[in-house]
């Protein structure tokens, strides 16, 4: 896949029109994980728009986005930054050996209180 194709693919998977963004920054004003995002929610939208996906694919932020939908809910232009983050994360985990969490890492972290829901959702988000 060429880089251009990859950019188009990410745009398509995200299902969101990044050109609608008016760069107000409300998403980043609301993001509860802001401090743990090395690339900020509004940057995901603008950088995808500019085609700067290499940095996005390498970002730590894709593992820290909570998918809480706060940015989607507040966006005044109907853009969904969380869907862009997810499209980038999907693209990463679909690559060979790029899973966010390895199976062997899990047993040591699991305590007896951890609900199945946490394991399932984290696995869904981080792995393919």
């Amino acid at each position: 896949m060429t880089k251009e194709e990859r950019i188009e693919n990410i745009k398509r998977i995200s299902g969101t029109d990044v050109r609608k963004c008016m760069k107000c920054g409300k998403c980043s004003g609301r993001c509860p994980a802001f401090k743990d995002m090395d690339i900020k929610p509004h940057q995901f939208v603008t950088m995808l728009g500019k085609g700067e996906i290499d940095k996005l694919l390498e970002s730590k932020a894709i593992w820290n986005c909570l998918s809480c939908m706060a940015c989607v809910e507040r966006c005044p232009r109907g853009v969904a930054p969380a869907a862009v983050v997810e499209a980038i994360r999907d693209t990463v985990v679909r690559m060979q050996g790029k899973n966010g969490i390895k199976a062997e890492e899990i047993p040591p972290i699991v305590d007896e209180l951890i609900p199945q829901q946490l394991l399932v959702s984290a696995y869904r988000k981080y792995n393919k």
Partner: protein
Amino acid sequence: MQRIGVFICWCGSNIAATVDVKKVAETIKSEPGVVYSENYQYMCSENGQQLIKQAIKEHNLTGIVVGSCSPRMHEATFRKTAEAAGLNPYMVEIANIREHCSWIHKDMDEATEKAIVLVRTAIAKVKLNAPLQAGESPVVKRALVIGGGIAGIQAALDIADAGFEVDIVEKNATIGGRMAQLDKTFPTLDCSACILTPKMVDCAQHEKIDILSYSEVEEVKGFVGNFNVKIRRKARYVDETKCTGCKICMEKCPSKKGLNTFNMGLNNRPAIHIPFAQAIPNVAVIDPEQCIKLKTGKCGICQKFCGAGAIDYEQKDTFVEREYGAIVVATGFKPIALDNFNEYGYAENKDVITSLELERLMNAAGPTDGVLLRPSDGKHPKVITFIQCVGSRDTSGCGKPYCSKICCMYTAKHAMLIREKYPDTEVHVFYIDVRTPGKNYDEFYRRAVEQYGVDYIKGMVGKVYNENGKLMVQGSNLIDNEQITIESDLVVLATAIEPEPSIRKVATLLTASIDTNNFLTESHAKLRPVESPTAGVYLAGVCQGPKDIPETVSQASACAAKVIGLLAKDKLKTNPCVAVPDEMMCNGCSQCANVCAYGAITYVDKEFRLGGGKTEIRRVASVNPAVCQGCGACTVTCPSGTMDLKGFSSKQIMSEVEAICKK
């Protein structure tokens, strides 16, 4: 046999860039009936019109087709041209090859082919045109202004100064509108009341102006020059002619817990009240929802104390009917409801306020006598955060898609005034863009930053919440790429504005076009910006689009100029494109009269000759051409095909259809 001339306009490159105008003119030459076909760079110019006039005379043309811009733009121009050359102005048809062709197509062949069809269609129509004579109708020399804010006041004063009678219909108990609520006005910071109230007094004292306050337009009939308007005068339970405005009733009224709407609900007022000290008319009004006497029948205290005997609990709504030549709509705006913006905590926190509420808090005549005290505890706020674009430029469905235009400037004004009056106050402004075009406007905003040290933060607020008695304003700072939280004492929301909701009813009554944001549509965005497409109806102020006071006043004066121009005429030419019955075919069934929205159709008994010297009297439809608006509803309803519409006859439209479909 018709002799048709065709004139294809280049419109500079607007048409010529995508339509091969020479080819169009050349191809059309061979159309049956066409005796002359020419193209020219600007047909609407002096030279272009001269060309048309000359061709009409030289070639003895009986009808012309101009292939140019939209007929909504220059049909009137070319009709005048034809008339000047001695051709009946209704023997002109326009083929719209700009808006409907060159501007929307890129391919030259395709656009040229379409232009040819459009011109052929116009030729097909013009061949069936008949010379029409416009009738005349008298002009009632009186204007109606709907809305008594600064737009209505200015329009009324200008019209009245030219010597015409004007009525202002205002739905509230006083004129003054939103401007009366403001504290200072940008960019010069004069006090709003100081510049508005003298104009209000001028209105009241002007012998040509009649203020109908606490009244609403109920019904509109007629047309330009001859509107007949029914106005509801709402019962105020106080005799306007007797009340002296002494306010003793307000002192004595036991029901004092009504929300003071003039102060944006920030304090209370009695059931009987005068909205504010400088109200015009300075006459009390009773809120029937709040008045103990009107609700329970017991009380009557105000009546006892009123020395003028002005209180009348039995008062009912009354109606007046008046005739007007022209109508100015100036219904104004309101800030939007903030139900969809709970992230800013407006509903839960008293100290999150709208900008209009801040105006009242800063106003010397407001609930705090002009001392800035926050609503929750009456203390001086030390940190104030402004949030811009609350509900503006929002296409998510929660707010309004447009820019409200005035917020950048009034927020700069608020920030500056606060820093001026209370230098120990910290002021922050979250903004997306600062939009301050206009004379001395950007300078004004820069003064807030440079001279008054207002902290402008490029970013948007995501959440406002209360923590330990402080308002925490969490937002982004895009310049620093940070998320920040500002501990504030007061948060001010620059709330989007929308047209006053009553505009919908007014628009329906006037059959004035309205857009999806409830703004009234102007006739032409650039060249006819104060006229509604409905003849005789003019638009002033925010009802037509967001604007500030200087723009509103300009538009109001422009409306006045248009109205004066109209009222100065004694007679108006009427639209000759009206319905006409073929009496021989009419069987008097009344269906056309039933669908006519204007009551233009009546029935007359007429004598018809039958063969053999016999006659019969039949009931047939008759159209009053002064009342008919030419919509054509009757022509389709008529079961016998009696009714036709001049200028848009069935035969003409049929031939247009044929011309389009011909391959």
